[in-house]
């Protein structure tokens, strides 16, 4: 099939259907409304269900129930709505239910703005809900990558029985770009059996219970240790990044998603000025590609972290650099998007 021009949000919705998602539960919030609207149109055509929930809290709990019954399930929202979903995300982590959650981040805190931002990085990577848990967090930088990551998200969720979050921003959701949806079909992993799902006892031996309550502390500790071992495995197997002009880079930019795209222009502009700039773009921010930044910190004079927030991913970059080179920051927030020129100026300041 030829490429089609699609809005990021709609492309993600269609990619979810391609991945076998037939159950979507959502609630309106800008800038991701095209996802529930698209699902409302498409799901009846593929014998799926779309439910507009009474709140983001209800939507994520519908995800809990439906995914607990073994289906491929997705919900989507934007920052304030994702805050409301944190309760459900914690329960889903505790009950080890696979699901996909899209966050098209907007400016915060509070109601904030409706323009693109990356200020939910801490919430996504440190866990906005309670308890020791993690989510896999994928950060697409284009609409094509967003559809590929959507398909990958369902496979990872099923494989590890955990939430996979697609962390975009208002830009990724709203931008229109050519996408090849057929190409993503080749990325799909074989379906995973779900013998634990609550589908009724006639469909499996014994009784299945989906639960996150362990009233005995020693039992819960064992559960947490088992979860932690799983998370370590995910760190080894899933962390991914892209490098650009890193062979001889002396100033290394660190950026993800939309910001990384802008940084690519900035790197080229800096190179034209004779500055040996490079870029490391995490494609997963949990697990974070620490190794790539450890190597960069050995090689480069400094690292410049560029984000659409007041400085959040910089914590992970600093953990990786571990004092081996200076790490500076340039960011815009509140829905403001940095320009390549601003970033070049920040590069020049960092190399001075």
């Amino acid at each position, binding site marked *: 099939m030829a490429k089609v021009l699609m809005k990021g949000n709609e492309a993600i919705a269609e990619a979810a259907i391609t991945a076998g998602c037939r*159950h979507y*539960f959502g609630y309106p919030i800008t800038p991701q409304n095209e996802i529930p609207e698209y699902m409302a149109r498409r799901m009846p055509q593929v014998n799926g*269900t779309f*439910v507009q*929930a*009474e*709140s983001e*809290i*209800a*939507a994520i*709990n*519908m*995800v*809990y*129930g*439906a*995914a*607990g*019954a*073994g*289906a491929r*399930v997705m919900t989507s929202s934007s920052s304030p709505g994702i805050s409301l979903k944190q*309760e*459900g995300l914690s*329960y889903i982590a505790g*009950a080890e239910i696979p699901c996909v959650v899209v966050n098209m981040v907007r400016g915060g805190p509070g109601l904030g703005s409706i323009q693109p931002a990356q200020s939910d990085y801490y919430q996504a990577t440190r866990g906005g809900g309670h308890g020791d848990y993690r989510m896999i967090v994928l950060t697409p930088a284009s609409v094509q990558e967003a559809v590929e990551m959507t398909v990958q998200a369902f496979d990872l969720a099923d494989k590890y029985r955990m939430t996979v979050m697609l962390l975009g921003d208002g830009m990724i959701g709203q931008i229109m770009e050519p996408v090849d949806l057929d190409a993503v079909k080749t990325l799909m992993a074989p379906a995973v059996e779900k013998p634990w799902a*609550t*589908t*009724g*006892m*006639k469909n499996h031996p014994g*009784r*299945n*219970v*989906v*639960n*996150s*309550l362990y009233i005995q502390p020693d039992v819960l500790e064992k559960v947490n240790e088992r979860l932690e071992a799983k998370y370590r495995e995910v760190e080894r197997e899933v962390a991914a990044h892209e490098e650009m002009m890193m062979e001889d880079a002396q100033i290394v930019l660190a950026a993800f998603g939309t910001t990384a795209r802008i940084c690519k222009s900035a790197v080229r502009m800096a190179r034209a000025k004779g500055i040996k700039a490079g870029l490391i773009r995490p494609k997963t921010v949990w697990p974070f590609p620490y190794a790539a930044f450890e190597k960069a910190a050995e090689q480069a004079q400094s690292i410049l972290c560029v984000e659409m927030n007041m400085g959040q991913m910089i914590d992970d970059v600093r953990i990786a650099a571990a004092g081996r080179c200076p790490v500076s920051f340039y960011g815009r927030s509140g829905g403001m998007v940095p320009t390549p020129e601003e970033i070049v100026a920040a590069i020049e300041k960092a190399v001075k």
Partner: protein
Amino acid sequence: MAVVFEKPKALANVPLHYCPGCTHGIAHRLVAQALDALDCADNTIGVAPVGCAVFAYDYFNCDMQEAAHGRAPAVATGIKRVCPESVVFTYQGDGDLAAIGLAEITSAAMRGENITVIFINNAIYGMTGGQMAPTTLVGQKATTAPYGRQLVGQGSPIRVSEMIATLDGATYVERVSLHDAANVNRAKRAVEKAFRRQIEKKGFSMVEILSTCPTNWGLSPVEALNYIIKEQMLPVYPLGVLKEE
């Protein structure tokens, strides 16, 4: 000789953790009897609440999911949309359903989700130690209403069944009580009817069951039945079918 009464098969063979005389045990049995009568336990998925019945997932011989506080109707919605031919029920207390989960129960009823809701109203938060519920009677003492629930500032009890019955999506709503054997038998018929109607795809059904909390009411189990339910709850929460379509 024939067995006229024995433990239903759908009730797991484990001791219930409830306090002596707590009528949760009777309500559990009524659900299990309904699953037995309709021979559907192996095609049923139950949703347990947060509250005293939090361990309900251990007590029914069917698949179960444990929901977050108040969210059982949303969880049940998700399950039912994936398994439309399965029987899906929630078992919720008054703190769970009538306070924190009011949005979820109302919206599930509004959508006409073809699920069965068993709503235990004992006018108090049991598990957390006897705090005031939205269903607590005016004047009734609770640990967070030490002078009794005050009309001014704390309001009067919410009648969830009456409210839910106003919604077109709810097709069967009945309030029953467990204060004596005749009423338990009426409750048994109501619970079974609610499940049967779900199997017949008649839509959202809810049975509110007036229940006791002897421990937090500070009464003996027998006094709890007679004093609170019979004398004080029945005038506020009249029994009967509120809706049947």
